[in-house]
């Protein structure tokens, strides 16, 4: 039997045939008469769970249970827009005779994720800040295409005919500046993916550029976004109506209305039940609502405070580090607001203004 909490209908977002109901939480004081919903740390602590469901090199899935949508969403937003990364920002073109023109080439290079720990670098305060070894990484891209001697005559495969027929992200060569050689010795800066095609070349074409990478955030440009996607969905629920069981002869059809594994059918009795461990696999296609014969048999819902997060890392951070980074950013923001609030509170004091980071 699933934990009772999932059957707390107050926490359900109703998923109906043509609409979604009860999307907002109601556990705040004053909504339910004669109930105390004031915020309580202990209760919050008890309800809060974070559980990793799957972790791979590039992505993580975890459950975040017991928080409000605003908190879960804040992490998602911060992951997309405010966790800093390092990307190429300025491209100095000495020579580019490839088919891709300078501006587009620069844009493509900018989108290449780099494996640099943002903690090692400072953010430029303004656009025109002097480039230093603390805030700028320098790469060199120098590729020329040539005909491969003794290439087989009958082939049309460019990789056999030419040397460097493609400019790849692996061609980006780090040029250490100042103290960088020591600081970044462990993990020399390079693209995380070495097989990104930046342009194709043919004999006689050449690319020679100097690239300056800086620290930035995703809201400034999508290239600084550390994640390919960071999103969540709510835990799906399939609630069978005990009053109206699924007709036996339709059990298989009923099963097929859901994602594989969600519905179990007893091979003997053809009785239908929900595999509560696998409900998370349900894609909420609402297919069951399409068949009139199942009307009233089942109710779909989602749990409002049970977030199934999915984060795909693209860049320096291993996926498990992304949420802590987001929390760190959030804490820094809270700290700023706290300071500002405190300043406001004892406003006689000459602490001066608190500089707010742009929100």
């Amino acid at each position, binding site marked *: 039997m699933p934990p009772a909490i999932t059957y707390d209908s107050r926490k359900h977002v109703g998923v109906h045939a043509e609409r979604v109901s009860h999307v907002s939480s109601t556990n705040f004081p004053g909504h339910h008469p004669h109930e105390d919903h004031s915020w309580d740390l202990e209760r919050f602590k008890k309800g809060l769970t974070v559980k990793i469901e799957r972790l791979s090199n590039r992505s993580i899935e975890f459950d975040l249970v017991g928080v409000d949508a605003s908190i879960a969403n804040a992490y998602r937003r911060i992951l997309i827009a405010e966790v800093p990364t390092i990307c190429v920002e300025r491209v100095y073109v000495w020579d580019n005779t490839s088919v891709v023109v300078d501006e*587009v080439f620069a844009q493509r290079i900018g989108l290449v994720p780099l494996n640099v720990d943002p903690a090692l670098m400072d953010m430029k305060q303004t656009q025109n800040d002097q480039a230093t070894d603390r805030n700028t990484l320098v790469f060199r891209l120098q590729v020329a295409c040539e005909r491969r001697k003794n290439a087989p005559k009958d082939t049309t495969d460019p990789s056999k005919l030419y040397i460097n027929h493609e400019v790849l992200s692996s061609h980006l060569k780090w040029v250490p500046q100042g103290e960088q050689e020591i600081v970044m010795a462990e993990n020399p800066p390079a693209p995380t993916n070495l097989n990104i095609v930046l342009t194709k070349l043919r004999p006689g074409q050449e690319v020679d550029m100097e690239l300056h990478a800086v620290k930035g955030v*995703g*809201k400034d440009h999508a290239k600084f976004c550390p994640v390919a996607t960071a999103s969540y969905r709510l835990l799906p629920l399939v609630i069978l109506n005990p009053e109206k069981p699924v007709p036996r002869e339709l059990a298989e059809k009923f099963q097929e209305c859901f994602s594989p594994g969600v519905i179990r059918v007893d091979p003997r009795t053809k009785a239908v039940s929900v595999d509560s461990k696998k409900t998370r696999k349900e*894609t909420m*296609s609402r297919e069951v609502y399409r068949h009139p014969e199942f009307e009233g048999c089942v109710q779909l819902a989602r749990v409002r405070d049970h977030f199934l997060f999915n984060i795909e890392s693209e860049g320096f951070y291993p996926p498990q580090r992304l949420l802590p980074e987001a929390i760190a950013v959030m804490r820094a923001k809270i700290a700023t607001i706290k300071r500002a609030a405190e300043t406001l509170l004892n406003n006689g004091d000459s602490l001066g203004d608190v500089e707010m980071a742009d929100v």
Partner: protein
Amino acid sequence: MATIVEEENDWEHANHTNWRGLGLADPIKKVEDKWLLLPAFLKIKGLVKQHIDSFNYFVDVDIKNIVRANNKVTSDVDPRFWLKYTDIHVGFPDRTDLDAIDKSITPHECRLRDITYSAPILVTIQYTRGKNVVRRPNVNIGRLPIMLRSNKCVLTGRNEAQLARMTECPLDPGGYFVVKGTEKVILVQEQLSKNRIIVETDTVKGIVQASCTSSTHGGLKSKTYVATKKGKIYLRHNCIHEDVPIVIALKALGIQSDKEILLLTAGNTEAYKIAFSANLEEAAKLGVFTRHQALEWIGSRVKVNRKVVGPRRPAWEEALEALATIILAHVPVICLDFRSKAIFVATMTRRVLMAMDDEKMDDDRDYVGNKRLELAGQLLALLFEDLFKTFNANLKSAIDKVLKKPSRTNEFDAFNTMQFQGDHITAGFVRAISTGNWSLKRFKMERAGVTHVLSRLSFISALGMMTRISSQFEKTRKVSGPRALQPSQWGMLCPSDTPEGEACGLVKNLALMTHITTDVEEGPIIRLALMLGVEATGTEIYGPHTFVVNVNGTIIGLTRYPMRFVTNFRRLRRAGRFSEFVGIYVNHHHHAVHIASDGGRICRPMIIVENGRPRVTGEHIAQLKQGAASFDDFLRNGLVEYLDVNEENDSYIALYESDIVATTTHLEIEPFTILGAVAGLIPYPHHNQSPRNTYQCAMGKQAIGAIGYNQLNRIDTLLYLSVYPQQPMVKTKTIELIGYDRLPAGQNATVAVMSYSGYDIEDALIQNKASLDRGYGRCQVLRKNATLIRKYPNGTFDRLADAPLDENGQTQKKYDIVQLDGLAGVGERVDPGDVYVNKQTPTNANDNTFSGQAAAVPYKNAPMSYKSPVAGYIDKVMVSDTENDQTLIKVLIRQTRRPELGDKFSSRHGQKGVCGLIVNQEDMPFNDQGINPDTIMNPHGFPSRMTVGKMIELLAGKAGVLSGKLQYGTAFGGSKVEDMSRILIEHGFNYAGKDMLTSGITGEALEAYVYFGPIYYQKLKHMVMDKMHARARGPRATLTRQPTEGRSREGGLRLGEMERDCLIGYGATQLLLERLMISSDKFEVNACQECGLMGYNGWCTYCKSSKKMAKLTIPYAAKLLFQELMAMNVVPRLILDDA
């Protein structure tokens, strides 16, 4: 169970009765994939076959005919001299530069160097030199611009690799000319058919008239009418002052007997006889009984315009000549045998009589079968004939001039004279094509705007231009008839592709599988018809069972068995005994069989059905698939045939195989060929409201995308390119056939159909900022800037100079990209105001006196500087020579633009919208997979537009994305919605395509499901950057001192009459005064209170006093008005009063 078995046995029994190896219960085998005939057709003919075929016909056939008709040049001075053209042919394009070693030239070089892609016209001449006859082959008389991909073009028959070496796009359709570097198209012109009788009735005036425009090969055109006037019938023609009573006309044409006249016109029909009798009476009343009397009657009314002063000919001779050569000139009169012309006039009369009796017997001018399309070949043929005649006239006078000289030192050789004839023919062609003015005095032709610059905005716009048909009809007249969609356009002209507004319905486009015929010689056709049993015409041609047989509108005989005749005729055509483009049909109303072999008829291929079975079978298609058979084989084997509009209307055509019945004659190859190339891009067009498809046809031409494989080598005035074009998720067969999947113009955007933020009202779109960062909608704008480095007649020349230094020895900022050769470096960034070509011109360039020392002349700067408000980059610099040895410099400047607020986008369903807001990714809604939309579209765009096709496109696109396949949205077919829904369900999505989204702002689920999936979006060329404009202060017009007008002149924004009315109504007088005078053209004048005239410096020149002068402020335009009035002898006086 037993009964069922029995029944099965019964069936089995029935199955044994075989017919052509098939049992009764066997399903009729369907011809699978018969649409493959379409690519086979296009492979043979190409997309613009009509232009190319027409040009080929001109170059291979018509030009020889023209020369044959004008092949002799004689001299008035020396009767023994003659020069004869025995042959003519057009060579291949070559380089005209004299010192060139490699004479081969490519069209692309012509585009870049601003020269003409042309080939020499070579003739073989025979002429007398002294007492000998000399023959000279390959004499060049001029150059003909060559149509790309025609017979004479170097691109024809080349494969992709060869084309790539010539920097030419394999998908480019050709069919246009390159003249002085610009690509010019001769649009197809629609006209009423020539040499055919058209009967019209005017019910209001009660007039019935039959008209016939005669056109002979000489190009002479005249229109003859047979019309009613007060119940009687007259023949009317421009060359006769007065309407000729029809009986007089017929008598003049040699039919003297009233009985015969009656038989030839009214036949045996009593009603017609009664209606006609009045005409016989009239002739008698006028005292015309014999042919001579009739000729005299007409002759005294013929307009004589004779230049040659000779003895006055008697009136009957004038009449005879007019009747023989001017009236109905297309009907041949051989040795003054007027019989066929008389019958033609009689037929016209009969048609009038028929229409008088029954209004329904008139013709429909708008019927496509009554139209002929005039193509490049015909226009060029006319032009060539004119130029060739002038050339010969010039040659003759030049020869005469030489021969006139009494004593010549050496023997006269006409060849030398010919060499000095100049480039009259070449220049004539180039001028006509580059200006579009076809003014041929000789043929009374005065047409402007025949050619257009090929629009290279996108691949589709170029293609769309090649299939365009323009009508001769005036745009301003408000009649609906010619603009309306004609049922006979079915399959011939695209029902969707027409512009909106004034040219609506007048400019049309060809459907995908059409062909326009070229002339086929009619002599053999007539002979064939006679062999098939057509009898000669007697007196009685309107018997109850006789059918008149016409070839190209002229009667050649009669037949009593029209159906048998037509069937036999068709059988011979299917056997390939004569051209497949000869049409034949029976007109039961007129009891006539019409054979048409003239050029300009639209026709299209169709599968022949015999005995209820299509002749094309699965095996044939299999052969086609293997490449063992081509479309021509199908034609040759009589499996398919071309039907023109008239013949189509005489056939019974099944749309699908299942519709075939016993009387079916043909089967459509594929229903979607009813649409043209441009409308073929629309997925599921049969689900859209029809105007939406029309809108998309207009917008598809403005979409930014790829324009050709050679786009990066082109230097066009303005070139829009997409950075990341994608082929659409939902394709159509047309898209694959025309190559839109290889040269696309758009991107598959993930669209959420929902409202968001309120910045999406009125069709505005919301864009995802991250998508834009990653390259969605990014485009490049390349602009050409060209200049000539001239040499002047006085020996001076322009020059390029390096950047000048300022007093500190530094180069100025605006010259910093100019290199030592005076040109900006490729790849340099050009800021507004920067100089990129530092040209200098001599100060005395226009001074024509030769000064000798060119180096010593003073020079002034004439630099080219960058005007756009946004920086660009030098993309290319080209230095070359033009045909007349001027140095040509072209600089291509590129801007890369990402979409911004106000840029215009459109889906493929006529749903355009501007970008209303750019939203950060984190604020965008997302679905369970974490997918953000690229674009949010407001659902209010759907109910009133009814573009259901767009919804299905989304569904099919989503299914395609999930299954990893491209889906088809071909018209009248395509992927079915049910299948798409099934794919969605299989992948765990809602069958309707609606996803549950979470708001990116609140983090809560949205309360409605959102229609979510990919739709192909086009970025249109209208971008805010090119349009935004504001001014505080700026330039003023010199004459009125008011602010200039228009963005290009940095003009002011007009406060117009209506705005002025608002201010007046509101009472904001001071604002009014400020806007209309103070901020505009405020001017202080001195006016005299005494005389009311304007003076200056406090002095009235009229009163010669300064006593009563007053200063006042008026608009300068008012002052100007006063002065202009005074110049016209009107005295405006200012009466001043203190307010």
